């Protein structure tokens, strides 16, 4: 029966080939969308990997995540250096990296941090940051900057280039810190994450640009610009505040704890734990700290929350992929149905040599099964080739890793569903043939 169906299809190989192609493309599309989705989610979930907790001035966890990990928007007004030291001193904390934000370089966010950032930050499945050229902050690096790959590529930066940052986060800014230029010390290798679009400067340098500003820069009528103490949650959205607070920078005198420079206020802290199971306890401790209104964000939880928001686009993509699969199935039904009339004679001959109508019914279903199976195989081949070709591009530019596995975890299920859909669709022409052969008997009146 199988051989017979194969021969029959071979006889119509051109149309059959097109049908297989249509099914193959839809299979590749469905699996491709699924893999892209998984890859996107993984890369997304990994964009803060290695960080157990992000501590920032009290605010919405998604907003804190967006500001710190993706460099979009800002956190609430600064948290005190005291809180950072308290954090760092906790017994369950392995490391803590201070983060300052609020400046931009030609529209790209500038992050003030220290060298430990490069040591602890992980991306795309746990890979550490590496340099494409130059060095991380050197010992005295108050004016050193490390730039992400995308920035370096876009503006042609290399170690030694002198750059000037601007205040605020908008692309167009008239408030240039041109009196405090930075010299690029290193260019990061591409990560496919927001890091590619960030400029890193040492905390000390970050403060320097603000230290030279004249004191009364705040509008006395703007409550958001009120300096220093007493920031509540109500001004959590003002990302400029943290830096305007630096006007009282010179007054701060803290103890040395290994950070070469101690700003009085920072925007966030990346925290790594010795034992990750303590994360909830620490989170509670942070939230309950009386002297500073802080939020401790579990990056994984916030990322999942954020992913939930973007899930609609994802569903639309899946829907489209399945619609294409439906079109593929319909093209198969069309192909099988269109040939039925010309094959009536063939079916009559088969009946005359003993084929039952049920057997002829089975013949059509077998043909559909062959077409669908061939489509599935073609789809997998197309997808593998496409993955092979696009993987270097996707991983470099978007940090997406599709993986070369022939089967993902859910893919056998998806393939099975498509195969069943193919068989189901073939019932339409098969039932027609069944009736036709019963009515025609052995002599076809055409």
């Amino acid at each position, binding site marked *: 029966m199988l051989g017979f169906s194969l021969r029959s299809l071979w006889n119509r190989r051109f149309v059959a080939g097109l049908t297989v192609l249509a099914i193959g493309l839809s299979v590749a599309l469905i699996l491709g969308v699924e893999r892209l989705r998984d890859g996107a989610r993984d890369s997304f979930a990994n964009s803060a990997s290695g960080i157990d907790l992000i501590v920032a001035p009290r605010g919405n966890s998604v907003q804190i995540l967006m500001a710190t990990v993706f460099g979009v928007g800002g956190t609430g007004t600064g948290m005190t250096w005291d809180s950072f030291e308290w954090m760092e001193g906790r017994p369950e904390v392995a490391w803590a990296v201070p983060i300052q934000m609020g400046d931009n370089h030609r529209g790209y966010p500038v992050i003030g941090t220290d060298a430990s950032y490069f040591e602890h930050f992980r991306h795309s499945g746990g890979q550490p940051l590496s340099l494409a050229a130059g060095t991380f902050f050197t010992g005295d690096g108050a004016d050193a900057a490390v730039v992400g790959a995308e920035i370096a590529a876009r503006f042609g930066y290399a170690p030694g280039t002198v750059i000037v940052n601007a205040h605020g986060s908008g692309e167009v800014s008239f408030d240039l810190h041109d009196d405090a230029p930075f010299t690029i010390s290193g260019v990061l290798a591409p990560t496919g994450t927001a890091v590619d679009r960030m400029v890193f400067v040492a905390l000390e340098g970050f403060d320097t640009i603000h230290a030279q500003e004249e004191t009364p820069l705040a509008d006395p009528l703007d409550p958001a610009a009120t300096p220093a103490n007493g920031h509540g949650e109500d001004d959590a959205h003002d990302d400029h505040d943290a830096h305007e607070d630096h006007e009282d920078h010179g007054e701060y005198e803290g103890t040395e704890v290994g950070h070469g420079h101690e700003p009085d206020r920072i925007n966030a802290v990346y925290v790594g734990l010795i034992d990750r199971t303590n994360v909830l306890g620490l989170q509670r401790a942070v939230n309950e700290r009386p002297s500073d209104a802080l939020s401790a964000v579990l990056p994984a939880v916030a990322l999942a929350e954020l992913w939930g928001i973007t899930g609609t686009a994802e569903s639309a993509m899946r829907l489209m992929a399945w619609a294409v699969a439906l079109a593929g199935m319909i093209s198969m039904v069309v192909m099988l149905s269109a040939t039925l009339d010309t094959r009536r004679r063939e079916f009559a*001959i088969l009946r005359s040599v003993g084929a039952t109508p049920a057997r002829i019914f089975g013949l059509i279903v077998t043909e559909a099964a062959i077409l669908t199976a061939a489509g599935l195989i073609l789809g997998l081949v197309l997808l593998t080739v496409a993955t092979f070709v696009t993987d270097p591009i996707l991983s470099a530019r978007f940090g997406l890793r599709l993986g070369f596995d022939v089967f993902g975890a859910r893919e056998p299920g998806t393939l099975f569903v498509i195969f069943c859909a193919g068989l189901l669709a073939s019932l339409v022409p098969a039932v027609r043939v069944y009736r036709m052969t019963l009515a025609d008997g052995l002599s076809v009146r055409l």
Partner: protein
Amino acid sequence: MRALHVQNLTFNWPGAQNVTLRIPNLSLAQGERIFLFGPSGSGKSTLLSAIAGVVDVSTGAILVADKDLGAVRGGARDRFRVDHIGMIFQVFNLIPWLSALENVLLPCTFSQRRRTRAGDDPVATARRLLEELGLSDPSLASKPANQLSVGQQQRVAAARALIGKPDLILADEPTSALDEAAKAAFVDLLTRECAEAGSALLFVSHDRSLERHFDRSVDFLELNRSAA
């Protein structure tokens, strides 16, 4: 055993007023060759359909190899047909995309009985049949059926009807598409092979010039009393 026995058969097409067939008695002994002649449209093909078990008769009995077709239902009747009957049609006998040889072997793929009776090696039997029917060229046997001439196609159809020695061969105007010389040669070959296979042959035609090849002839108009 009788290859075919038709008794008190009546048949009318659904919705038709008049009875199409009314055949009191028609019998073929084992290996007997009968020439059934009559004008077109007189119901000859309908009789063959009834014998092949494709249409259900209203009353009466059709026995093929002493088995009542009316007692065999559905798919079993298709299997019974291929076990006991070989068929040759007017035209379009072959699956166009199968080779001549594969077309000949079709009954053997659907019938265990025919396969067993085709000998130890059905393929060799098929080749021998093709050869005896004048298609000895090996390249012809492997050609797709739609590349053969009409005369060649009819001989392939004959080989297919004959393979596995069925009890009865029904031939429905198989020579109408052939020229005069080919007709006689075809009928000659067919009757000879039937004799060799021991199959009874019911040969339907309107061309009485072929009558002489058969054991006896039957006038369909006399056989069928539907008009009476």
